[in-house]
């Protein structure tokens, strides 16, 4: 029954997130329909949309009625998996997202792989070289890496032969600013564990560092990795929106930029909901794993 609380919390957070995104969308004085109509009406008089057509369009997009009615209708449509239709292509938003998801997932997979390999390896390496020259140089380099704008890196790689490998180039750009975060967290976690009594007792009994890492310290870094996942996803998606258009990858990032240029707010809203949902799902998964595995372990072994 321990799993009920984290799942309940995740569902409550999900409903709150959806409501907040809906309210942000509704709080803007103008609506995407008004933006679309004003753009359409800039054409000739024969192309203008009359008030009846405007009212019908608003009803189809769920923009009629008071706020609670619109919110409940929105939540109901969401539960059915209906994110509305694109204002530009009239395709269902869910279909558009599904169509553009695979390239983004490829970039996500490769960049997470690079981040974990680079971050874990570096974190383990630096934990054993605290206060050395290498550690100081790495701190300086990491500060610079964290300040590199991803779109600038993307522009640089675009001008190199790397351009012929868009997925790999995008993954490298996404992971460059991400893996220092992970390396710092792993290093700090390991340095704390090095000071723990069980580590000192194990070393006094003759256990070698590789054995200690393999049997105890490696697993103890798992909570850090789990906590890193939701942050990594948010960071990754914010970066991929900027990088995919540079390399011409037809993923969610390019879809977002294309929708922006078409003033296609329902698609952008659908992408926002999707990204927020994944982030909440990863946070909920982390809490569930902590509740089911680590908390009972810690309560038995204070």
């Amino acid at each position, binding site marked *: 029954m321990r799993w009920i609380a984290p799942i309940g919390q995740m569902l409550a957070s999900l409903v709150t997130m959806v409501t*907040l995104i809906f309210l*942000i969308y509704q709080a803007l004085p103008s609506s995407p329909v008004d933006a679309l109509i004003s753009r359409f009406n800039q054409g000739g008089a024969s192309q203008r949309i009359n008030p009846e057509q405007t009212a019908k369009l608003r009803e189809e997009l769920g923009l009629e009625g008071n706020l609670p009615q619109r919110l409940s209708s929105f939540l109901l449509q969401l539960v059915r998996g209906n994110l509305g239709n694109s204002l530009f292509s009239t395709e269902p938003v869910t279909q558009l997202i599904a169509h553009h998801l695979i390239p983004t997932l490829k970039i996500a997979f490769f960049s997470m792989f690079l981040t974990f390999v680079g971050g874990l390896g570096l974190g383990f390496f630096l934990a054993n070289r605290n206060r050395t020259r290498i550690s100081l140089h790495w701190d300086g380099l990491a500060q610079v890496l964290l300040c590199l704008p991803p779109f600038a890196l993307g*522009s*640089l790689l675009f001008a190199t032969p790397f351009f012929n490998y868009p997925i790999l180039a995008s993954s490298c750009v996404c992971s460059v600013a991400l893996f220092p975060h992970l390396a710092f967290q792993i290093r700090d976690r390991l340095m704390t564990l090095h000071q723990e009594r069980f580590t000192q007792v194990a070393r006094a009994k003759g256990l070698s560092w590789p054995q200690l890492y393999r049997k105890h310290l490696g697993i103890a870094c798992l909570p850090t990795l789990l906590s890193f996942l939701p942050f990594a996803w948010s960071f990754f998606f914010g970066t991929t929106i900027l990088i995919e*258009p540079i390399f011409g990858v037809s993923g969610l990032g390019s879809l977002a930029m294309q929708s922006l240029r078409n003033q296609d707010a329902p698609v952008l809203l659908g992408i926002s909901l999707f990204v927020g949902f994944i982030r*909440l799902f990863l946070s909920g998964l982390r809490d569930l794993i902590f509740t089911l595995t680590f908390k009972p372990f810690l309560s038995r072994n204070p």
Partner: protein
Amino acid sequence: MRSRLSQIFLFFWAGWIFCSTLLFSLRLIGGVLPDFFLFEVIDSRIPPLQPPSAHHWFGTDELGRDLLLRLLFGTCYSLLFAIPVAVATAFIAALFGVSSSFLKPKFKLLLSSFSDVVGTLPLLPLILVSLAIYPGQMAVVAFMKIFLGWTTLSQLVFLESELLFSGPMVLSAKAQGISTIRIASKFVAPQLFHIVRGYFPLLVFSNILTLSALDYFGLGFPIPIPTLAQAFQPFQDSPHAWWLFVFPFLVLTSLLQGFRLLTTRKN
């Protein structure tokens, strides 16, 4: 202890910001600067895409405009956006954090969960949604940054104010009959101000990065206002014009690095 290299770097960083602010102030006065310093004027006599020279230290861009000038003004415009947004974000975060500590435990948990959920909202997609409806409106971008950016600082402020309010000094002050408002204003607020001040450069860092990302795609400041990221796009079309990448990259990265160093120094 800040290293010597960081000190030298911060010296030049402050100098660059001072020069950009001075140039902007002189431009505001009007009539002081010669035509060369008016970034919106395109002089057709100057050839485009010129490499760095004695006349144009950072070279010229695709329209023949001096790159050094555009980067100096771009720095100032970026700070004009980033600093007020950071001030507003810090104010809201501090207000939220401190007021949460006066509530009952049930409401504290609710507000803490609310700030967690707001923290998970995707910033860039929501900014793009707003820009889809209000293209080119920087006020909308500023509103989104403020609305979605206060959560981390508010949690820090909340934790610190909880520690302070449960500390021995506040408890003994309350026992002596001093009002909570007086305690908050005389003791708690100055302590919390240090946290907000330490986190403030990171807020500015985040705002400059977001603005530059939007500027890169032409979604930030409208033409002809110069920005730090504008030169990267022409570099993609003219990769031989290395100065269109190197100098804006150095300026932008150094600007961000300076604010990051200020954060780590104060923390």
